[in-house]
């Protein structure tokens, strides 16, 4: 067994000012509300197909959302509501998509697992494990070639570290010094199986970094400000020609793998321990402890609640998409013809 990598502490290099702290809290609170509402709508049988919720993992996507430049690229997995939302799309478009409504981000053609907003740099949610790892390297190559100092950020789960594309992509990113940040959200379970039971090393991403000449980076993914600092460090490195980073952020999903999974394979005490480390109340407490007034946080909470209620109403009132869009956009000409 490889020696456990020690978790990183704060370097103090990227302190947040008060307005940034409130912004980070706002993004996290909105992600949380969105995930909780997606769950509630599913329980009311209003969600088509499946959903994979990142409830409990919001600090990671939110910190990157704050740290990224508007023109940076993100790539994420089917558990991608948070990562896509933080780039600037509306709650209505997310709820509409999972409910199969015309107001959905993809008008129902993609579904919960494929949220994408190219105009916001959210370059797709990928439902085949590992597929987006090399695609993110390609976007980073494009940025490097065009000399734009954009970075690509690729979020993935612990299970991804055991598929071939992970290794091909990180080797490629390392040899070409690509401006890409790989972020492993280690939520401790690959679907229904504990990641430690199926992985040769203790830390599935961090312990693999040395194989590609990269620094081993292991952080508490439920510490929002530490995640922000980690994100800024990696993004600065990418923009300045320093090449890729591989970050492992430990976290926990409060629900099961997908809608079909109650998550009963997880010991009660483990769940309780991680719920106690829920990143949202933890950050709220931290902000209160550094002197931010409770009323400012309460105002964000209230606004978030009214946003999610309004989005729910808009999505619920939106009709299903018209039949004709089933036959559009296979090709660049907008159509689907394969013969003359």
């Amino acid at each position, binding site marked *: 067994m490889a020696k456990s990598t020690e978790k990183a502490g704060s370097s103090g290099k990227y302190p947040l000012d008060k307005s940034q702290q409130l912004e980070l809290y706002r993004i996290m609170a909105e992600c949380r509300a969105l995930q909780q509402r997606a769950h509630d709508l599913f329980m009311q049988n209003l969600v088509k197909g499946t959903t994979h919720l990142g409830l409990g993992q919001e600090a990671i996507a939110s910190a990157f959302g704050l740290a990224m430049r508007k023109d940076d690229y993100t790539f994420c997995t089917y558990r991608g509501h948070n990562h896509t939302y933080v780039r600037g799309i509306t709650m209505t478009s997310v709820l509409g998509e999972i409910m199969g409504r015309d107001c959905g981000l993809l008008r129902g053609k993609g579904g919960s697992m494929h949220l994408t907003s190219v105009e916001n740099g959210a370059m*797709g949610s990928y439902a085949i494990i590992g597929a987006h790892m090399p*695609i993110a390297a390609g976007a980073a190559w494009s940025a490097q070639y065009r000399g734009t100092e954009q970075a690509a950020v690729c979020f993935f789960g612990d299970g991804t570290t055991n598929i071939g*594309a992970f290794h091909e992509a990180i*080797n490629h990113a390392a040899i070409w010094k690509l401006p890409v940040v790989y972020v492993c959200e280690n939520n401790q379970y690959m679907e229904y199986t504990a990641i430690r039971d199926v992985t040769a090393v203790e830390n599935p991403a961090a312990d693999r970094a040395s194989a590609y000449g990269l620094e081993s980076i292991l952080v508490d993914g439920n510490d929002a400000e530490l995640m922000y600092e980690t994100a800024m460090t990696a993004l600065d490195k990418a923009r300045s020609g320093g090449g890729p980073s591989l970050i492992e952020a430990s976290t926990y999903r409060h629900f099961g793998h997908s809608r079909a999974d109650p998550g009963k394979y997880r010991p009660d005490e483990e769940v309780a321990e991680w719920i106690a480390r829920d990143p949202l109340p933890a950050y709220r407490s931290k902000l209160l402890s550094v002197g931010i007034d409770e009323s400012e946080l309460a105002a964000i909470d209230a606004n978030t609640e009214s946003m999610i209620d309004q989005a729910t109403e808009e999505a619920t009132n939106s009709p299903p998409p018209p039949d004709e869009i089933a036959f559009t956009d296979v090709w660049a000409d907008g159509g689907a013809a394969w013969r003359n």
Partner: protein
Amino acid sequence: MAQLSYREAVAAAMAQEMRKDPNIVFLGEDVAAAGGVFKATVGLLDEFGPTRVRDMPISEQAILGATMGAAMTGLRPIAEIMFSDFLAVCWDLVANEIAKMRYMTNGQVNLPLVIRAGNGGGARFGAQHSQSVENWAMAIPGIKVVAPSNAADVKGLLAASIQDPDPVLFFEQKSMYGLKCDVPEGDYVLPLGQANISREGSDVTIVALAAMVPKALKAAEILQDKHGLSCEVIDLRTLVPLDTKSIIESVTKTGRLVTVEENPRLCGWGAEIASIAAEELFWNLDAPIMRITTPHIPLASVDKLEDLMIPSVDRIVDVVSEMD
């Protein structure tokens, strides 16, 4: 006109387009310094430099992933997958990602990219380096599929594939890389989705692709000389989009349809064409539609057995002469 080999036409088409558009980049295994294992990209590194012509590790998923990521963010990449058989190790990128991204995102993503791959048998490489996999590709909505039969078409169709706004799988016939023909000089682009009537005739329509086209043409000569049969040979050039109009016009005239396919029999492209003819030309047909294919068997390595499998001039002559 200049005499160019099939492999020289690959480099000529890429250079022609790369000179026009600095966003065209090229990557693959052994493609830059070595000029490709089939020497189809010799000279590109020298002319366009190491930032546009790049060697990759043996990582086909990384190659096609990088190709897709670059295409969705403003570049027009060309990837080489050395042998089309190797598409099996990166098929997720082709079938699940590249082909579906535009549709799934309601038209947000553009993927102007080309995947070139050496395809087909005849080189005695055995079952894992000899397959004709164009029917794998045409089974996936969202990918265009091109397979030229001569050097002139390589230049015109590869240029068109590079210019095309959609992802294209471009199959180069390994056994034909050394074959020369007259190739138009200067800027030369052919349309995708337009078949070529390689030989006009009135009795039988023979539809062929890639290496099967010269065999069909040779068979047509013999059928005319020895059997007095006038064969029309259609070189499909592209499977997606499919030029059904040319096929329908020809079969309406001849009343007889034969396909010659290098792919193994089940779900080969000829089955789709036979189905179209059966649905739309039934009352014009004077004889059953015939398919000549490689049997549904992996290819053997030794020349004697490989030649037994892949459709030959003799098999085409036998099948066509016995129609009616």
